[in-house]
C-alpha cells in the first residue's frame, strides 16, 4: 500500500505518536483541568506540555492556544467569534478557500450577521493582494484566508496580506490546514489568529486541532459548558483557553500531538518541505510531457507539496479507484473546495490530488507514475 492522501490526514503517524496515544490512554486516563487528584494533575500537566509546544510552534502564548477537534472547528470559533464580538461587518476571503471557511461565512451572511466578499486569486501573488486590497472598505473587520490551497497547493502571499491587514486595522485569520509543518508561519509574522489541524503536517492523531490567537481581537464562545473553572458562574468563562474548551478535550489525541510536533522539529520544517517538494517535482517532471495528463500548476506561483491533476477524458474518481485497486491511495473529487475547483476549471469533474508526506519515497512516486502511465480505461 502506498498512501498519497496526506493532505486529508497524514498516514502513517510516527511510531512515537502511536505509542504516546496508547500511553495516554493507559497512564493519563483522568480528566484534565477538572479534579485535583494526582492522576488529573498528571494528565493536566501532559496537556499543558502539549499546549506549550503548540504555542511555541505557532508563536503564541500557552493561554491563547486552544485545542479543538480539528481545523474546521478552530476556523468556526475564529470566524464566528470575531463576527459575534464585532457586530455586523464586512469580511473578505479568497476563491482558494475550503468549505471550512466559506460555509461559516455563508451561514453568517444568511443570518444577516455579516456581509462578505470573495477576492479572486488571479494568476499571481500580486494580483491576489491587489484584489483583496480593492475589496477593503470602512466596514471590513476580517480577512480570512488559507496559507496554501488544499486542492492545488497554491501558496498565498500571507506576509503581504499581513501588511494590508495591519494598514487598515483588520483582523487576519490564516487557515493553516495544509501549511502547518510545511511553512514556518507564526503569529510573530503579524497574523492575528492561526487555525491548524493537529493530524496533518503536525503528524498528530485525528480529532486534534489548534487555534492560536495574539489576543488583539476578542472572540466569543460558540459552545458553552463545563470548563473546570468558575463553576458557580452561570456564564461561560471569558478567558482563553477555557472559553473555547467546553467539555472534555481529546486528551489522548492532544497528548500524542506533542510527539508529532517533536517529530516535525526533529526532521525540520525546511527538510520536510524540501523532501515533499522533491517528490512533487519528480511526479510532475515525469508526467507533464504526456498528452493525456493535465497538471494544474503555474510557473508564476509557489506551491505546497500538493499536486492536482487529471487524466484527460477520465472521471477523477474512476482513476482514483483504479489506483486504489493497485494499492495506491489518493483522493479524487472536489476536496471540499468548490471555489478552487471552479477556478482551476475542474468544477464539473473534480481532480486527483497527489499529496506525499515525509514518509513517502522516490520509489513510491515512481510506482505511481508507472501505474498512471499504464492506465487503461
Amino acid at each position, binding site marked *: 500500500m502506498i498512501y498519497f492522501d496526506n493532505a486529508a490526514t497524514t498516514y502513517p503517524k510516527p511510531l512515537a505518536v502511536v505509542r504516546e496515544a496508547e500511553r495516554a490512554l493507559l497512564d493519563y486516563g483522568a480528566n484534565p*483541568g477538572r479534579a*485535583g487528584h494526582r492522576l488529573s494533575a498528571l494528565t493536566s*500537566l501532559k496537556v499543558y506540555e502539549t499546549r*506549550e509546544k503548540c504555542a511555541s510552534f505557532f508563536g503564541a502564548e500557552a493561554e491563547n492556544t486552544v485545542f479543538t477537534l480539528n481545523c474546521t472547528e478552530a476556523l468556526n470559533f475564529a470566524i464566528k467569534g470575531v463576527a459575534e464580538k464585532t457586530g455586523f461587518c464586512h469580511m473578505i476571503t479568497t476563491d482558494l478557500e475550503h468549505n471550512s471557511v466559506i460555509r461559516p461565512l455563508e451561514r453568517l451572511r444568511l443570518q444577516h450577521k455579516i456581509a462578505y466578499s470573495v477576492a479572486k486569486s488571479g494568476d499571481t501573488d500580486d494580483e491576489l493582494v491587489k484584489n483583496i486590497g480593492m475589496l477593503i472598505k470602512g466596514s471590513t473587520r476580517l480577512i480570512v484566508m488559507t496559507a496554501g490551497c488544499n486542492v492545488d497547493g497554491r501558496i498565498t502571499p500571507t506576509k503581504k496580506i499581513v501588511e494590508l491587514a495591519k494598514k487598515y486595522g483588520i483582523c487576519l485569520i490564516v487557515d493553516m490546514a495544509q501549511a502547518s509543518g510545511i511553512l514556518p508561519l507564526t503569529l510573530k509574522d503579524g497574523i492575528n489568529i492561526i487555525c491548524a489541524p493537529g493530524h496533518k503536517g503536525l503528524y498528530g492523531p485525528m480529532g486534534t486541532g489548534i487555534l492560536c490567537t495574539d489576543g488583539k481581537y476578542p472572540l466569543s464562545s460558540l459552545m458553552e459548558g463545563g470548563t473546570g473553572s468558575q463553576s458557580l*458562574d452561570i456564564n461561560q*468563562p471569558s478567558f482563553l483557553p477555557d472559553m473555547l474548551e467546553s467539555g472534555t478535550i481529546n486528551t489522548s489525541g492532544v497528548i500524542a500531538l506533542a510527539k508529532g510536533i517533536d517529530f516535525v522539529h526533529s526532521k525540520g520544517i525546511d527538510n520536510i518541505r524540501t523532501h515533499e517538494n522533491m517528490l512533487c517535482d519528480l511526479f510532475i517532471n515525469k508526467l507533464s510531457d504526456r498528452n493525456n495528463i493535465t497538471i494544474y500548476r503555474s510557473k508564476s506561483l509557489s506551491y505546497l507539496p500538493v499536486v492536482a491533476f487529471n487524466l484527460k477524458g477520465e472521471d477523477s474518481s474512476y482513476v482514483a479507484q483504479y489506483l486504489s485497486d493497485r494499492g495506491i491511495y489518493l483522493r479524487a473529487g472536489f476536496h471540499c473546495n468548490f471555489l478552487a475547483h471552479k477556478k482551476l476549471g475542474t468544477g464539473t469533474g473534480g481532480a486527483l490530488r497527489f499529496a506525499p508526506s515525509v514518509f513517502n519515497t522516490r520509489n513510491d512516486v515512481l510506482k505511481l507514475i508507472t501505474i498512471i502511465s499504464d492506465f487503461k480505461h
Partner: protein
Amino acid sequence: MKNFIIMKSSTQAMRAQHIAKSMKINVLYTKRTDKSGCHFGLETDYDPDRLCRMLSLHGIECTRIVRKGDKG
C-alpha cells in the same frame, strides 16, 4: 495547610507551576473548593506575595491568596 495561590484557570496554574519550578520554588498544582467555587492554583510554603509578583512578570495574574491558616 500551605499557602494557596488561586489562578483563573487550570492552564494558568500549570503555567505558573512550570515557571515557579524553573526558579527552584517548591509549588504544587492543586485544586481547592470553597463557597466561591472550584479553584486551580499553587500550594506553596514560599512567600505567596513575592511569588505572585514574580508570576505577574510572566503575565500570570494571581486571583487570590489563601494564606496558611485562613479558612478560604
